[in-house]
């Protein structure tokens, strides 16, 4: 316990700080409701023409949209803005003075940053899309609970892995930002990659069938597509386990890459005396 205390503290400090931005959370929530409504209407229109062409049912697609909007802030769109700042102001030097594993320390802070932005919005979204919509008679457009107990139980590790994977991707981005001091450039590459390949834009199976073999093994699939399909049991049994394994595998690979890159960067900073 003693060992992980500082990392927990780093996580908690950042988490509490981010929770204070209530107005931003409310604005983000309203925007995401609107977005969700548009997406769902678009889906409904296409399903209305040719439902049999769809890889999942409309009800599942609706849940997919709400879940995606609820957890939008968990996606690694942009590098943690504090990292670039810390390097520019020399705050990184302090981080090297702490008797901690620098990667673990940053990872915990980044995790706190992501979860604090995501969880309040997710709770609000669950309330509105999951509870209020059915109550006012719009149950067909509601965010449904997981499809069965197995799906619910499997979604727990899937959610944890999705969060860890997102943090691992962000960490890699953070290190590149810190090394290149080019936050905008990194974000410019990262954002479109994440939107398309995570399944945030559309569930990956909606893209042309020929692309499937590639789309289902690339790391970003573990951010949205895999966990969400586990949620409504589109992935179940061994397929679900395979999905979890893919998430876990990519997380390990990316954490390893991130650590390696970070060590190299730190060594360079030491040599420059920066």
């Amino acid at each position, binding site marked *: 316990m003693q060992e992980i205390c500082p990392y927990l503290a780093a996580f908690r400090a950042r988490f509490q700080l981010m929770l204070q931005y209530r*107005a*931003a959370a*409310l*604005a*983000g929530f*309203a*925007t995401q409701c*609107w*977005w969700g*409504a*548009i997406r769902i*209407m*678009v889906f409904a*229109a*296409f*399903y*209305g*023409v*040719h439902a049999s*062409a*769809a890889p999942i049912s409309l009800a599942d697609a609706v849940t997919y949209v709400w879940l995606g909007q609820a957890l939008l802030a968990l996606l690694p769109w942009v590098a943690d803005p504090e990292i670039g700042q810390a390097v520019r102001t020399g705050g990184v030097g302090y981080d090297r003075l702490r008797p901690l594993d620098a990667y673990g320390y940053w990872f915990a802070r980044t995790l706190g940053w992501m979860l604090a932005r995501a969880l309040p919005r997710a709770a609000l979204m669950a309330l509105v899309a999951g509870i209020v919509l059915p109550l006012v008679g719009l149950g067909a457009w509601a965010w449904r609970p997981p499809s069965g107990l197995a799906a619910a139980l499997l979604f727990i590790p899937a959610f944890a892995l999705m969060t860890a994977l997102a943090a691992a991707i962000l960490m890699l981005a953070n290190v590149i930002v810190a090394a290149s001091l*080019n936050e*905008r*450039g990194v*974000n*410019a*590459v990262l*954002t*479109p990659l994440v*939107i*398309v390949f995570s399944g945030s*834009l*559309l569930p990956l199976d*909606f*893209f*042309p069938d020929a692309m499937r073999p590639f789309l289902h093994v690339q790391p970003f699939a573990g951010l949205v597509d895999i966990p969400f399909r586990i949620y409504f049991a589109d992935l179940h049994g061994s397929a679900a386990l395979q999905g979890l394994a893919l998430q876990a595998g990519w997380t390990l690979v990316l954490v390893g890459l991130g650590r390696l890159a970070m060590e190299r960067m730190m060594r360079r900073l030491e040599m420059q005396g920066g």
Partner: protein
Amino acid sequence: MNGLALYGRYVAASLRAQAQYPAATLMLTAGHCAATAVEILGVFALFDRFGPVGGWSFGEAAVFYALVNIAFSIADLLTRGFEVFGTDFVRTGAFDRVLLRPRAAALQIAGHEVRLSRLGRLAQALAVLIVASRLAPIDWDPATVAIAVWTVAGGVALFVAILVLQATLAVWTVESLEIVNVLTYGGVQAAQYPFNIYAAWFRRLLTFGVPLACVAYYPVLAILKRSDPLGAPDWLLPIAPLAGFAFLALSFLAWRAGMTRYASTGS
């Protein structure tokens, strides 16, 4: 020097400032282009899988997408000052500085910054328009071109008006209200599909509440030489973008009320 010429000087100054960081500006532009272009991928994937929807092929739908994105990118390029008015002008007190100059405040705010990176969205939207013109049967005769330009102008007016309203609200709230993103980014999101696929309440909101349909859906019908499947009269379609200008006029009335309020409360 009259207002328009001075605005030109402001624009030139802003461009010179951005020219000091050419690499960053280019990269931002490319990034903006990529981040906004992914939307058309989504539209394409849906049409590819499901086939035509609401009587529209992908090529026709792409015209809706292109025109609203062109209009928004131009508005977005021009209105940075209004967008950051709350956080960068009212809260910091920098707006006092603006009022100390013998020129209309709106002109100075409009001239605050012209964001070149927004050309990224414009570039991808123009590319989509070119592709759409090949896929859909559009006859680019002078009249059609005129309607397209007029449509974009109305769209720019509408989006500028929304940003002016956001800035006006900031006099009361001090912060820039990000909730307005629902109407700007969210408006683009909505208007890049033909409106007849949406639910009735949503169409009404975006016709009579914020006249987005008037600067996107209706005039594009005229460009595609199609009648409204929902029954709006044909003569209405090409003149609908007027609503964007009316909305702009209204937003400036609100802006003036905001200025009066600012003078009596300060920041």
